[in-house]
């Protein structure tokens, strides 16, 4: 993974000093709260319901054990002994004090981390496929691109005061695990059919929130060398022409929608044509320097199937089920990419205690070339695990309550913090997730249902990605109580789709029943091994709507 050189190190240290100075100027009155707020947000500091919140960047979700241990330490020393992994592959602490933030930033800088641009109307922390570098069907590792963008977007002189936040995601695989179509810019590495050169497919104008949109392709094959100049062209068009009269219409998706993808593309290409690429783009030597950090680790030569693993599976059914559900195929024979579930039944999705962080850090150091990933689904990944080590890892995870075999299943729920923490939320999310998990706690039943993504947001901003959940749940306020709107048929993958609203809002208590009825329709209607989303695509929403109405009728 990437390591800071002297220049990166100096930059991050200077950023810590800058923020420290900004806090001082806030306290002495040089900066008003209105002036300070965007500055603290650009450094990941929010004021939430009960306290400040600090969002720490985990660029493209890649971490090493030293970094995770430092996060565990910060959680213990300055917070309440736990953190929350987010849908943008970041980590949030819920209780830091503003006075401690400069010190926390120093501790982060010690392990090559920061909070730069984890909020605010700027280019946010770049996300990527959590199986980058290990997925079998990958064309190229997206992380060198993501790192290049991380550096380029940091403290950008021109694009730090955009109309609204701006999110970029990168994937290098056919299967989209980075939800690139729901990002302001989505980049997909692909080969040009004639030249066989790796290029980017560039999508713009995706995004969830109040007006969910799927990104539109503006360039089919952008040569890799032109990346930064092309991004500059997109950003300039957006910075100048994005709406600033209404914050709900300020994302680039609205600009693309209002003028049309074709006209937007024309304006970007016109701007791009005026740019002097070589004076903007990173030179090939710099691109190669960054890429070298992401070279694969030195894998052992192993047989494709581990006999040790097979023997353990044969004798331990619980372990066998966990392996089946939580591991993914790996490029290197004898290895696997293991997802550690942060969704034990009844816990807040994505939360991990400092003790759990340390345990996973130890496992990464011992069994995964010291590398970890954070997924947008709020789980952790040990990306390079020898199959034969899985049993030992499973036992250790089990002791820490982290051996849930539910990745991609109905209890692997994505959830924002909701009104239990968030000042923007209109309703709670976590208790809804917990109630659904309890309802479907039986592991055999979960496997019987198969892949089913439930995603919950506590407000229209959609941090919980509810629009692209197979079942989406949106918490709202209706006449002084929490009310939940259910959507169906969303998809976060390469077949990205926005879910449709099933019917009127439900009370919190009714939500698990509604999910149960939806699942029952699926189990009745599915043919053979057809997945939940495929069944919806085949039969439409009709039967589900009918079942849903029974819930609302029963409640009336």
């Amino acid at each position: 993974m990437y390591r800071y050189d002297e220049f990166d190190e100096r930059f991050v240290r200077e950023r810590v000093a800058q923020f420290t100075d900004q806090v001082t100027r806030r306290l002495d009155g040089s900066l008003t709260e209105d002036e300070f707020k965007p500055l603290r947000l650009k450094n990941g500091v929010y004021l939430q319901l009960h306290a400040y919140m600090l969002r720490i960047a985990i660029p493209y979700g890649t971490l090493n054990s030293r970094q995770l241990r430092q996060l565990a330490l910060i959680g213990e020393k300055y917070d309440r002994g736990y953190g929350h992994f987010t849908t943008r592959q970041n980590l949030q602490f819920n209780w830091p004090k503003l006075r401690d933030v400069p010190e926390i930033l120093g501790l982060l800088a010690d392990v090559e981390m920061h909070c730069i641009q984890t909020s605010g109307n700027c280019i946010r922390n770049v996300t990527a496929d959590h199986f980058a570098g290990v997925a079998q069907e990958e064309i190229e590792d997206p992380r060198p691109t993501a790192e290049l963008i991380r550096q380029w977007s940091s403290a950008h002189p021109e694009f730090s005061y955009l109309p609204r936040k701006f999110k970029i995601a990168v994937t290098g695989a056919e299967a989209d695990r980075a939800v690139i179509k729901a990002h302001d810019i989505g980049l997909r590495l692909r080969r040009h059919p004639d030249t066989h050169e790796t290029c980017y497919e560039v999508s713009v104008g995706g995004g969830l929130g109040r007006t969910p949109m799927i990104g539109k392709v503006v360039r089919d094959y952008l040569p890799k060398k032109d990346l930064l100049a092309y991004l500059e062209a997109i950003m300039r068009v957006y910075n100048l022409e994005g709406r600033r009269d209404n914050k709900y219409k300020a994302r680039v998706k609205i600009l693309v929608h209002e003028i049309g993808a074709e006209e937007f593309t024309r304006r970007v290409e016109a701007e791009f044509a005026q740019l002097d690429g070589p004076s903007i783009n990173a030179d090939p030597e710099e691109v190669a320097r960054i890429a070298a950090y992401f070279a694969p680790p030195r894998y052992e030569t192993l047989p494709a199937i581990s006999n040790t693993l097979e023997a353990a599976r044969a004798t331990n059914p619980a372990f066998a089920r966990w392996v089946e559900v939580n591991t993914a195929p790996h490029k290197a024979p004898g290895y696997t990419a293991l997802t550690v579930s942060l969704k034990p039944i009844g816990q807040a999705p994505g939360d991990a205690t400092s003790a759990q962080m340390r345990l996973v850090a130890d496992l990464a150091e011992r069994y995964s070339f010291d590398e970890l990933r954070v997924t947008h689904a709020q789980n952790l990944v040990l990306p390079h695990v020898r199959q034969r080590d899985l049993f030992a890892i499973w036992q250790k995870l089990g002791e820490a309550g982290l051996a849930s075999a539910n990745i991609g299943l109905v209890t692997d729920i994505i959830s924002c913090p909701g009104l239990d923490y968030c000042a923007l939320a209109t309703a709670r999310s976590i208790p809804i997730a917990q109630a659904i998990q309890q309802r479907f706690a039986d592991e055999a039943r979960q496997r019987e249902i198969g892949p089913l993504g439930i995603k919950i947001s506590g407000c229209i901003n959609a941090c919980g990605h509810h629009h692209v959940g197979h079942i989406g749940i949106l918490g709202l306020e209706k006449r002084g109580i929490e009310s939940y709107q259910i959507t169906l048929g969303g998809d976060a993958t390469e077949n990205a789709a926005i879910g449709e609203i099933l019917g009127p809002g439900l009370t919190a208590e009714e939500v698990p029943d509604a999910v149960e009825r939806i699942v029952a329709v699926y189990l009745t209607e599915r043919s053979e091994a057809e997945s939940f989303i495929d069944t919806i695509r085949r039969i439409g929403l009709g039967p589900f709507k009918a079942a849903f109405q029974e819930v609302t009728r029963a409640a009336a």
Partner: protein
Amino acid sequence: MPLLDRNGSREDRWTRSEGAAIGNIPAALVPWEALTEALEALAPAQQIGVILPNSVPFAALAPFLPQLSLVAIAFPAYADGRGFSLARQIRRADFTGEIRASGPLIADQFAYALSCGFDTIELPEASAARQPVPQWLHARESFSATYQRGYEATERNILDQRRAAKAAGRLAAERA
């Protein structure tokens, strides 16, 4: 209104005109709407500058640039960053006059503004009173180098610094 450039406080030699009425003001700053009319009345010794709303597209300004000595881009709020891109476009057109950011900017934007091509910042009294000049000069130096190429001198650009460091390393290796 208080004015500063990269070295600190500076006298403002520009005078705002009433609409297009530039009379014999030596350096007249006119509203965008009055620019065409004011240019017609321009005497050979006079200099003219324009107060440009940040919603005006660069293409509309471009034909006037050869006659202008100053473009003062309005920042209605400090968080409205359109002016940064406008300044870039104006500089790209080889405009050699002064570009000014006019509005309630904050010291933390000083380095960005200079990098994008601004020469001066014109502040409302209230902003300037809260943020004295030393804060601006301090904030200007927050980063000794940044990552974006084409905005700053090569010696303040990390990518160029890396290349230079590598070249120096190679040279040293050859000599050894």
